[in-house]
């Protein structure tokens, strides 16, 4: 079985889905001849043509909006927003329409589309190339939010996202794109949306993470008997897997790259407090980015949660 990085795995998922279903079309800035700035769509224009791998004008709102129109017409668009920091002009379309069209039309029109976007800091990129704004999208009912953490689950989750009947925001960690390889089978396999994954079983503390932070978290545990959960889907949340683990361990550390205030960790923390408070032995801890404007590359390593910070939080909850 070939060992692929996440770029290759996502490319393979797109290619196989396009081979399988003629309705799958790609659109975005530079996704055609250039293959995208991260080369995710490399070679696809040669196989599927410019009609299906569409280089668009530089216009995020209409990339999202046209994807909505295509989805309404019955296509399966996979739109790329070049960086998550550039997704804000598209949010009107995503929030005002993609999330609502099924409800507004009482199911007559649906919006099965995927918006892929690279997220996260740590690749020495310019301003607004490093955001992790996942929580914004989790606050909007009607949208699903997916964050893969490895080449294998990136492929399986993307295939599921493309086939999903609802709009999906698919967040790809720039730092993970080429930093790890693993065996990724050719041919289709799916990983269900809405399901978290227990990466490592343990009984002392539950660690919740997703995307690139999963790997930082795994670096931090060393000899601790920690249970590590990779959420993979943030919305709809797999509360069952989380609560089952928390009820077992009684301790929780949540790790994410986005700022702390109103980050997705707040939702996780509240969910645990509501449904598993009496099982807790220690306060819930969050290790997150700081409540600051994300710094330029010279300071970004100080912003992103480190293994040392995660370790310290684990030690803190273990005191109880």
């Amino acid at each position: 079985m070939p060992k692929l990085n996440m770029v290759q795995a996502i490319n393979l998922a797109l290619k196989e889905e396009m081979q399988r279903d003629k309705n799958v079309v790609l659109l975005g800035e530079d996704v055609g001849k250039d293959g995208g700035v991260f080369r995710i769509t490399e070679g696809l224009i040669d196989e599927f043509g410019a009609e299906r791998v569409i280089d668009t004008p530089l216009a995020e709102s209409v990339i999202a909006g046209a994807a909505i129109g295509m989805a309404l017409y019955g296509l399966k668009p996979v739109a790329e927003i070049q960086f998550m920091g550039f997704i804000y002009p598209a949010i009107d379309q995503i929030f005002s329409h993609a999330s609502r069209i099924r409800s507004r039309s009482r199911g007559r029109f649906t919006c099965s589309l995927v918006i892929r976007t690279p997220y996260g800091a740590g690749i020495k990129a310019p301003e607004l190339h490093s955001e992790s704004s996942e929580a914004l999208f989790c606050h909007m009912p009607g949208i699903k939010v997916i964050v893969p953490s490895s080449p294998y689950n990136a492929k399986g989750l993307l295939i599921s996202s493309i086939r999903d009947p609802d709009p999906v925001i698919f967040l790809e960690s720039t730092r993970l794109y080429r930093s790890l390889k693993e065996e990724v089978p050719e041919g289709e396999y799916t990983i269900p949306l809405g399901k978290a994954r227990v990466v490592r079983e343990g009984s002392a503390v539950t660690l919740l993470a997703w995307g690139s932070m999963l790997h930082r978290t795994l670096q931090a545990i060393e000899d601790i008997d920690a249970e590590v959960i990779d959420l993979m889907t943030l919305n709809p949340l797999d509360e069952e897997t989380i609560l089952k683990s928390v009820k077992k361990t009684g301790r929780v550390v949540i790790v994410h790259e986005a700022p702390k205030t109103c980050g997705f960790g707040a939702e996780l923390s509240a969910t645990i407090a509501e449904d598993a408070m009496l099982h807790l032995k220690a306060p819930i801890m969050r290790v997150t980015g700081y409540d600051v404007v994300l710094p330029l590359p010279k300071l970004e390593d100080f912003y992103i949660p480190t293994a040392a910070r995660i370790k310290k939080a684990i030690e803190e909850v273990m005191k109880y």
Partner: protein
Amino acid sequence: MPEKIIESCNVKRLEVLDEKGNADESLMPPFSDEQIKKMYELLILSRTFDQRALNLQREGRLGTYASILGQEASQIGSAFALEKSDWIFPSFREMGVYITMGYPLYMLFQYWSGDERGVKCPDDLNIFPVCVPVGTQLPHAVGAAMGVKYRGDKKAVACYFGDGGTSEGDFHEGMNFAGVFKLPVVFICQNNHWAISVPREKQTASKTIAQKAFAYGFEGIQVDGNDVFAVYKAAREALEKAKKDNGPTLIECFTYRMSDHTTADDAIRYRSKEEVEAWRAKDPILRLKLFMEKKGLWNNQYQTDVESKAKETVDEAVKREEAIEHPEPKDMFTFTYEKLTQRQMRQMKEL
């Protein structure tokens, strides 16, 4: 080197029927008498619907409503050129389009009364739910047109918006996409001269809205938006052009919002009575009536028949709508996703 003109633009204005009911026969679309009568009846029906909606709102039987008064020819004329298989992306002031396409009247009342089931489009039509955020429907029309083009379907997409909508970023992005990809879409701008309280002149320094198309590389035309024949002709030609894969068109229907922005507005605060009165003489229904009278297609009896039929149709629609049971509170959950989430299932139990 001397400077030279490398590009210039001319803006056409199309008028067929004047205020006195005289039509320019050389421009007149080949309508049968029956079609002309049908259009007249749709104009009357739309105005009757509109008036009833305003009355129901005053009586507290309908929510906030956006009147189409004065804009009927722009809506009926353009929609009359559409086929049922075409895709339509309206804004929130297009009840005349829905009515012309055969959308059930009771469902329109249902929507404006605050029941979302009213915008569940019947299966034989492709007319989208009322779009409230101004101008945001242009990208959808463009995307649907990309779908039409990709599949090689013989359909066109019509997208409605107002002069205010042309100030939005989505107008630019949508028009630009349409031009770049040469899409089968017709943009129908009802320039009704007022975006709530802001006049057309403060939306854009362009002399016309039609000319904006020029910058995106396709044709724009201004039509007398109170002239149902001119609107039909421009729409028909643009739709045929779209279906032949000859690209998009922008039609500026030069019209006037005779009513307040919505029932929550009071236009007297920001515009003069004189201005409104001047437009009253350009009424779209009046001039078609004068035309038909000259052609022997209109008399008092016909008017009485058309009005009473419209009233009867609207009465029935109101009666039918008001007999519909209140939506189930649980309905608000049903269409968020294809399937309910675990959390939604728990929340539903609270109701």
